[in-house]
């Protein structure tokens, strides 16, 4: 068979636990973003727009929504006779099997897949990031530098450099040192988790590292072994929009920014389209009494109420008299009459009953998951039901089929979690 010059391996198995209930039932790459998209659409669209037509998507955590979304790759024109998209889940071989125990371990376990295309180069991507990048330019850079590995980096503010994998480079952008979350960073060039490797060298390194570490990881093991082994590793500087969306607040802010008049990240670009698996919903309808301002609204939505500064995914219904502000409502969710929602995220297939108020009260940090819910934003999970007439505070999380008796005096105070059984896909 024909060789592929470069194929992409997209790591999409992570949970993204700092996104709380948003990733309780789905992997982080499957979380909706910007209304109609899921996060994985960005790297997948980048691949096809960069001319990479062979992509292995490595799944592990809650893969159902993700695998259904990707299907055979039709929306990205990745349904090809040779190449295209393949979802690669952990598997059993002989009489034993194992989970993907690290980022590099996941690639190690799929060496046969990569070998079958005999690529010269392998592009390693994460399914967690939102950005547009032409990987073919990065490959040209990689070749020009004669590198064994090239790592995309971007400048981050010095004060947060200690939260990233930091690359120390010489004047020629050759990486001379790498530190994971350094206390005293020598540089502010952060790794974006995008790597191009010469396959021959990477293959060798994966096999060798597997003997040493059973949770082989790119940042922890493979990159250091390339550097220690004297390989030519270069930094590829990138200075456009790139978001990791690690936290609830970052997720909320990144979405909200898209509704700006001229957003930093432009979805209205005909020459670098982002593709997604859109269901065939009808057109969106804005009713006679509706008032929609400063918002993004997707296909199939029926808006009869007031929507201000919101991102609505496809097929969302906002009933008459409901007032929704500063919120993100995901696919197939319904906000019934008389609701008042402020600063909340409603996940997919969820129903908010009549006259429910969310986002009221004092800004108290969540008592169970203070690291997740601390920005005043309340999050309602997937397939959740919130009964009529209840009030939910700030920094709350609600999941499952809740009923009136779950709410003491019809109230879930700020900082509380309410997770019950009954939410199914």
């Amino acid at each position: 068979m024909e060789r592929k010059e470069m194929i992409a391996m997209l790591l999409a198995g992570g949970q993204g636990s700092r996104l709380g209930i948003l990733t309780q039932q789905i992997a982080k790459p499957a979380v909706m973003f910007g209304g109609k998209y899921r996060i994985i659409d960005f790297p997948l669209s980048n691949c096809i727009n960069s001319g990479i037509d062979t992509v292995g998507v490595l799944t592990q955590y809650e893969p159902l929504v993700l695998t259904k979304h990707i299907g055979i790759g039709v929306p990205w024109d990745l349904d090809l006779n040779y190449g295209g998209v393949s979802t690669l889940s952990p598997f059993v071989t002989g009489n034993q099997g194992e989970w993907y125990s690290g980022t590099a371990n996941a690639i190690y376990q799929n060496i046969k897949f990569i070998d079958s295309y005999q690529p010269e180069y392998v592009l390693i991507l994460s399914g967690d990031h939102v950005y547009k990048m032409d990987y073919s330019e990065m490959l040209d850079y990689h070749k020009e530098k004669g590198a064994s590995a090239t790592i995309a980096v971007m400048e981050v503010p010095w004060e947060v450099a200690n939260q990233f994998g930091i690359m120390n480079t010489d004047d020629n952008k050759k990486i001379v040192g790498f530190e994971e979350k350094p206390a005293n960073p020598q540089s502010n060039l952060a790794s974006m988790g995008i790597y191009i490797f010469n396959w021959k060298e990477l293959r060798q390194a994966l096999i060798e590292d597997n003997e040493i570490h059973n949770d082989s990881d790119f940042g922890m093991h493979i990159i250091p072994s390339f550097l220690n082994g004297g390989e030519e590793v270069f930094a590829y500087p990138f200075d456009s929009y790139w978001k990791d969306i690690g936290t609830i607040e970052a997720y909320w802010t990144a979405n909200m920014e898209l509704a700006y008049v001229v957003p930093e990240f432009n979805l209205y670009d005909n020459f670098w389209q982002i593709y997604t698996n859109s269901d065939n919903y009808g057109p969106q309808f804005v009713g006679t009494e509706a008032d929609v301002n400063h918002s993004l609204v997707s296909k199939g939505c029926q808006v009869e109420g007031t929507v201000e500064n919101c991102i609505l995914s496809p097929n969302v219904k906002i009933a008459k008299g409901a007032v929704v502000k500063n919120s993100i409502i995901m696919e197939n969710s319904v906000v019934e009459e008389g609701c008042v929602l402020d600063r909340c995220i409603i996940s997919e297939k969820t129903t908010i009953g009549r006259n429910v108020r969310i986002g009221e009260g004092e800004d108290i940090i969540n008592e169970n998951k203070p690291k997740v819910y601390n920005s005043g934003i309340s999050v309602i999970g997937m397939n959740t039901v919130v009964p009529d007439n209840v009030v939910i505070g700030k920094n709350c999380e609600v999941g499952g089929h809740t009923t009136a008796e779950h709410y003491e005096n019809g109230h879930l105070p700020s900082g509380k979690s309410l997770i019950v059984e009954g939410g199914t896909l």
Partner: protein
Amino acid sequence: MKAVGIILAGGKKSSMGDLASHRNVAAMPVGGAYRAVDFTLSNFSHSGIKKVALITQFNTRSLFDHISSSKWWNFGRKTSGLYIFTPHMLNSDSLSFRGTADSIFQNIAFLKKSNEPYVVITSAEQVVSIDYTDVIKYHEEKGSDITMVCKDLGEADVRDYGVVSLDHNSRMLEFEEKPLFPQQSTISLGTYVIGRQLLIDLLEEVHCEGRFDFVLDILVRYRKKLVVNAYMFEGYWRTIKDVPEFYKLNMDFLNADVRNEIFEANGPVYTKPKDDPPVKYSSTCHVTNSILNGGDIINGTVENSVIFRDVFVGEGAIVKNSVIMEGCTIGNGAVVENMILDKVVSVGEGQQLIGDPENIGVIAKRSIV
């Protein structure tokens, strides 16, 4: 499946004026994100009819662009799919299709090579959600030779349609095309079910006699020899017959019942996806009772209108009671009322385009106002 489908997407429509000067009516943009043919193709797809012939001969570029990949309607299979027939120029006497029956006759090989017992013949110029399996079931129960889908239009003006009179048992007695003085209110919707072998025999017979029209030369001429029964359709139906009807048909989508019947009740209407981003509503916009589509950026006022994809409405602009097709730009402060703007029309700042509710204005594709 029991049937193959035939879509007759042939005709020229001078009544559509500029809107159809550059496109086949089957490719007419409808309802914000669709082409007329999507409704018929989706009906076939939802009815489980997997083998469909589309016969066409005028202005086919935009239609073929739209259906160049048939996978969006679940066609494009190994043993079935969408077959596109245009006049083939092999014989000196078949330069073009001389009528509906002739257009099927010239592609009779499609029927002969099939083995499904029935054929569903329909048009591509209508907005309707119909399950053809119900019509076929009725056809079998009644033991009909031909079943014609009909609708009672009540008080409406039926002078532009094929008007039928039926006996108490739904058998067609008379059929009058565009009657000057209609006596009935029941019309044929141009959708028929007929046995495949019977259709082959009839097409060969009429061809020998130099007759070419399915309605006149088969349906009407054979009405006493064959049993033609009417299947009464109760749901929403409108056809793109002229500009006023095209305008109404788009405006009908502002009605929740119509939207529900067409887009949800029997499954979605499939179309070729365009990957537009969501609609952006600015903080200065004011939108009521309207349909909007992907890629739109709205800064002004939009009322009682159907806005197709990628439309830009500037600040202070007012769009009322209008149908604005893909790619139009309405400049700041412009006013558009009671109009149909074809694709990629540009209305300059402060311009006024005001039509009459009784006589909707049309601006041709790529015009600059």
